[in-house]
């Protein structure tokens, strides 16, 4: 038992994360932590740096600086020193990620999409990986699509496959980058239902979303980002009904139409 397993201790911790694209500061000194099993939604206007921050967490974007820790795996990025791929891998392995545009591999069947990384990254045998894939596909309601190519699946189905693909690697934390933004609302609902179930099972989740209902009903905390910085964080009901920051108020009144 490491010290981070104490009740309430941060399980995922990002501190002082800053990311710059040229002169534009996309993420400004963001510090955020999640307890084990906690679900945190990041909301905020477009271009606020929410997705960029999420990509910094699993180092798909290398931040200019910042410290990241998941459980007992940590990595500190200092200005001017790009971390090497092999230093990034251990952290990335603990994080599953789901993208706005699903990003399934179009040349592989649904089953192979979910199995590939299990075999290549975790070293599972093909039979073992595919058995695990089938149980996950069954869980997201898509066992019947195992042999289909992603192009033959609807957007909602593709996103559920993408969730199964990320879960297949047994991540400690799941990152969701606007998972329903590319979907029609009714199709998005299937995806949100899977996410809700996952949250109910105790998965630690960090979700960038425009789904205010999900943020309010499923997350334990909401973090509001504006212009690359966290301006407000708190319990969903408190942030939604009594926001303290003027930018949160204007953002919420725009999205909630009040």
């Amino acid at each position, binding site marked *: 038992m490491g010290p981070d397993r104490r009740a309430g201790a941060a399980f995922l911790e990002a501190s002082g994360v800053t990311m710059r694209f040229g002169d534009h500061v996309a993420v400004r000194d963001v510090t955020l932590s999640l307890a084990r099993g906690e679900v945190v939604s990041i909301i905020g206007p477009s271009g606020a740096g929410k997705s960029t921050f999420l*990509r910094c967490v*699993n180092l*798909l974007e290398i931040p200019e600086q910042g410290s990241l820790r998941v459980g007992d795996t940590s990595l500190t990025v200092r200005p001017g020193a790009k971390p090497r*791929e092999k230093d990034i*891998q251990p952290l*990335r*392995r603990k*994080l*599953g*990620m789901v*993208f706005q*545009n699903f*990003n*399934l*591999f*179009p*040349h592989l069947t649904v089953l192979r999409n979910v199995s*590939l*990384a299990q075999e*290549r*990254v975790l070293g599972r045998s093909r039979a073992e990986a595919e058995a695990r894939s089938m149980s996950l596909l069954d869980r997201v309601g898509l066992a019947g699509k195992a042999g289909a*190519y*992603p*192009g033959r699946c609807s957007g909602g189905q593709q996103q559920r496959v*993408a969730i199964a*693909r*990320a879960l297949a*690697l047994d991540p400690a934390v799941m990152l969701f980058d606007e998972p329903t933004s590319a979907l029609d609302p009714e199709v998005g609902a299937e995806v949100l239902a899977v996410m809700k179930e996952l949250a109910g099972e105790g998965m630690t989740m960090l979700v960038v979303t425009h789904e205010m209902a999900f943020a309010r009903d499923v997350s334990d905390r909401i973090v509001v980002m504006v212009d690359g910085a966290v301006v407000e964080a708190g319990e969903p009901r408190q942030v939604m009904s009594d926001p303290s920051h003027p930018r949160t108020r204007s953002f919420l009144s725009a999205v909630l139409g009040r």
Partner: protein
Amino acid sequence: MFQYTGYILAGVGGTVAITVAAFAIGALLGVPLAVASRSGHRLVRWPAISVIEVLRSVPNLVWLFLVFFGLPEVGIRLGPWATAILTLGVTSSAYLAEIYRGGFSGLGQGQWLASKALGLTTWDRGRHVLAPQLARVVSPTMATYAISLLKESALASTIGVVELTFRGGLVSQRTGDGLTTFVVVGVVYLLLSLPLAYTSRRVDSRLRAKFSVG
């Protein structure tokens, strides 16, 4: 019946051998060339782009003469077959590298991000995600290139490689019947290209039915 048809047909093996060997060399060498030409490091990218441009800007016939007649002056002596295969192979690498490059840019960045997020190594990303999709995107263009290389292989006759065109030349000189001879030679090239074009279309439409890329 044209009595020299058999003699001409005996050149098919040579023509096919040059085409297949040069294509294989080009397809292999083209990969590092394409990768280097997209490198983030200028010192890698610029030489690769220069090599591609130089190879593509000089006619293949001039490259053949340069290697066959020019290199012996600096002590490198290659036979006609080796010259034809190596020269066409190396110039093909430039054309194929450009075809690969076009394929790379056709693939969405999302594929790369997703495979990174899954923790796949650079090698596995290339082998299991990039290459198969790239193959799908570039195979029709590569087939077109293979057909043009088949025709380019006739250049080898100018340095004394006894392939289809060379044999046609001999026969037309012997018989004085250039019309019949080169109609036969032309038809043989046609019969060699057609299956290539047909197979490429079949494979392409079969793959297209399964999935599309990009």
